[in-house]
C-alpha cells in the first residue's frame, strides 16, 4: 500500500521535475519580455534529439549532453535575435505567433534532419533499479531530480546573488527604469532567452533516456510546462517549480489510483480548476488595473 504510493510519488516527482524545468523556461522569458514562448517545448525536443545524435556521431555521452545543452542556449539566442528582437515593439499576440512559427519551423527542421521516428538515449548511469521501502527507483530518475535540484539552486544563486541575475530581475520589474539605471536591457534579453533555451535542452537531455524522444515530443511537454508555469503564477520562479511538482505528482497519482486513460487531461482539468478559484495561479500576484 505504502510502497505503491511511494512508487507513484517517485514517478510523479521525476516527471514533475521535468515540467518544472520547462516551466522555469517559460517564466524566465515571460519576465524578460512578456512573451509566452510557445517554442519552449521545441527547446526540450532539440536538447534530447541533439544529445542522441551527437552521441551517435561518436562523442562520449557526457560531452554529447553538454554540447546539446549549449545548442539549446544558442537556439534561445537565435530565437530572440531572429524572431523577437525585430518585432520587439509589437503587441503580445503577434509575438506569440512568432514563437509558434518558430516552434513549427524547429519541428520541421527536426523532421528533415532526424526523421519522424523515435530515438532513445542510454541512461546516464546504467539501468540497475534501486529499491527503496518497496518502491523501485531507476537511476535516471535520480539524474532527473538531481539535475533539477542543481539547476534550481544555481538559478537561485544567479538571480539573488549575482549582478547579472539582479539586473535581469530589475528589468523584469520595470524595463524603462532598469534601462535608466544603466542596465543593457538588450543584453538581458539575450541572456534570458539563452537561459530558457539551456533549461529546455537540459530537460530534454535528462528525460530522453526515460521517455524516448521524437520530433513532436515538445508539443505536449511544452503545453504542460506552460500549465505548470501558470499553475504557480506566471513569472514566479518558486511557483514554476511548485507548479511542475504539483502537476507531475497529481498526474502520477491519477494514473496510478484512478485511470491512466486521462493522464494527459489531468494538467488541463487542474489548471481550469485552479484558474476558476484562483485567477492568477497559486503564487501569482494580485494586480490592480489602471483605467
Amino acid at each position, binding site marked *: 500500500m505504502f510502497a505503491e504510493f511511494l512508487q507513484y510519488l517517485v514517478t510523479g516527482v521525476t516527471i514533475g521535475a521535468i515540467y518544472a524545468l520547462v516551466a522555469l523556461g517559460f517564466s524566465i522569458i*515571460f519576465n524578460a519580455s512578456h512573451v*509566452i514562448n510557445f517554442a519552449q517545448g521545441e527547446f526540450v525536443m532539440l536538447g534530447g534529439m541533439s544529445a542522441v545524435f551527437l552521441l551517435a556521431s561518436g562523442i562520449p555521452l557526457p560531452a554529447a549532453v553538454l554540447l546539446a545543452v549549449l545548442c539549446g542556449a544558442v537556439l534561445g539566442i537565435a530565437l530572440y535575435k*531572429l*524572431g523577437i528582437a*525585430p*518585432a520587439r515593439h*509589437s*503587441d*503580445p*499576440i*503577434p*509575438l*506569440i*505567433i*512568432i514563437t*509558434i*512559427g*518558430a*516552434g*513549427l*519551423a*524547429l*519541428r*520541421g*527542421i527536426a*523532421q*528533415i534532419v532526424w526523421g519522424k521516428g523515435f530515438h532513445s538515449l542510454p541512461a546516464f548511469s546504467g539501468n540497475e533499479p534501486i529499491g527503496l521501502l518497496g518502491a523501485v527507483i531507476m537511476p535516471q530518475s535520480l539524474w532527473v531530480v538531481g539535475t533539477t535540484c542543481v539547476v534550481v539552486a544555481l538559478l537561485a544563486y544567479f538571480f539573488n546573488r549575482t549582478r547579472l541575475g539582479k539586473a535581469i530581475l530589475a528589468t523584469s520589474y520595470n524595463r524603462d527604469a532598469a534601462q535608466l539605471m544603466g542596465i543593457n536591457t538588450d543584453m538581458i534579453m539575450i541572456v534570458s532567452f539563452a537561459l530558457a533555451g539551456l533549461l529546455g535542452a537540459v530537460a530534454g537531455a535528462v528525460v530522453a533516456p526515460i521517455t524516448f524522444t521524437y520530433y513532436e515530443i515538445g*508539443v505536449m511537454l511544452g*503545453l504542460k510546462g*506552460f*500549465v505548470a508555469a*501558470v499553475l504557480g503564477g*506566471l513569472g514566479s520562479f518558486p511557483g514554476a517549480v511548485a507548479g511542475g511538482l504539483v502537476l507531475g505528482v497529481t498526474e502520477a497519482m491519477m494514473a496510478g489510483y484512478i485511470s491512466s*486513460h*486521462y493522464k*494527459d*487531461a489531468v*494538467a*488541463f*482539468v487542474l*489548471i*481550469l480548476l485552479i*484558474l*476558476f478559484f484562483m*485567477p*492568477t*495561479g497559486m503564487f501569482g500576484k494580485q494586480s490592480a*488595473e489602471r*483605467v
Partner: protein
Amino acid sequence: MSDGNDSLGAPAALTGTSARLAESSSLLARLLSARQGGFALLLATVLLAPLFMDGLYHYDLAVLIGINAIIVIGLNLLVGYAGQISLGHAGFFGLGAYTSAILTARYDWPGLLALAASAAFVGLVAFIVAKPILRLRGYYLAMATLGLGMIIYLVLTSESWLTGGPDGMDVPPLVVFGRPVMGEQTWYWIVAMILLLTYWLALNLIDSPVGRALRAVHGSEIAAATAGVDATGYKVLIFVVSSALAAAMGGLYAFYSGFITPSSAGFLHSIHFVVMVVFGGMASIVGSLVGAIVLTLLPQMLTVFADYDALVYGLILMLVMIFMPKGLVPTLASWLRRSR
C-alpha cells in the same frame, strides 16, 4: 475597423468643384467601405469564382476556405473586437463536428436537426464555462481556453466507444428534404451563402450598439462598465456566438468530408484559427476573409516543398508577424493611405 470611411469620407465641401469631388469620393468611400463595397466584392467573388475553378479539387479548396472564413469571422469578433483571446476554438469546432456525426450516425437523427442541436449544445457548453473563464485576463485566459480545447480533444480521443477514438469516425451524408447533399459544387453554394450571411451579419453587429459595447470592453473593461456597459454580459454573448458558429461549421464540415478525426479539435487546429485572425488583421472582417484564404491555400501550395513544408510555413508565419504585426489587411490599408 479600418474600412476606409474615416480617411476617405471627405468633410463638407465649400466650393462647387470640391463638392463634386466630395460627392464622388463619398461614393468611392462607400464602395471601399467593408459594409457595402466589401459585401459587393465578396458577392462578385463568390459568383464569379466558379468560372475560374477547374475541377473538383478547386471546389474542395473553396469549400474549406469558406468554412474557415466563417469560423474566423466569428473568432475575430471575440479576439479582434472584444479583445478576448481564445486558443481553444478548434475544441468547439471538433465538438460540433462529433456531436453532429454521433447524433446522425449512432442515433439516426435527421441531419439538419443534428446540426442545430450540435450548435445549441456547444453554445450551452460555452455559456456554462464563459463566466468563470472570461473573468480571466490575458495569458490566464489564453491558458484556460487552451485547456478547455485540450480537454475536449482528449475526451474525443479517449471515448472510442462513441467517437471511434484516434482513428476517427465516418459521417453519413447530410440529408435535406429526403435527398442527400452531395458533390463539391452543391457544397460550394451552401457554404458561399452562409459566408455571405455571416459577413453581412458580422458587419452589422460591429456597427450596432453591441459592436460599440464590445470595442469599449476591448479598450478598457472597467471604463466600459463605469459607462454602463454590461461588460461581462457582452463578453459572454460574443463567446457563445463564436463558439456556436464554430460548432455549426464543424458539423457542416463533418457532413461535407464524411470523415472526422479528433485532431480537428486539437491545439494546432486552434492555433490555426487564431493565426488566420491575426494574419489577416485583428478587428478587420475583410482581414478574416483574407487570412482564411491565404492560410487555407498556403499549406496546399507548400506541398511542393515536400518535407520542407512545416519549416517554410513556420518561417512565413514569423516573417509576416515580424514585418506586419497588425496583419495583412490593416498594414496594406495603411500603406495605401500613406501613398495617397
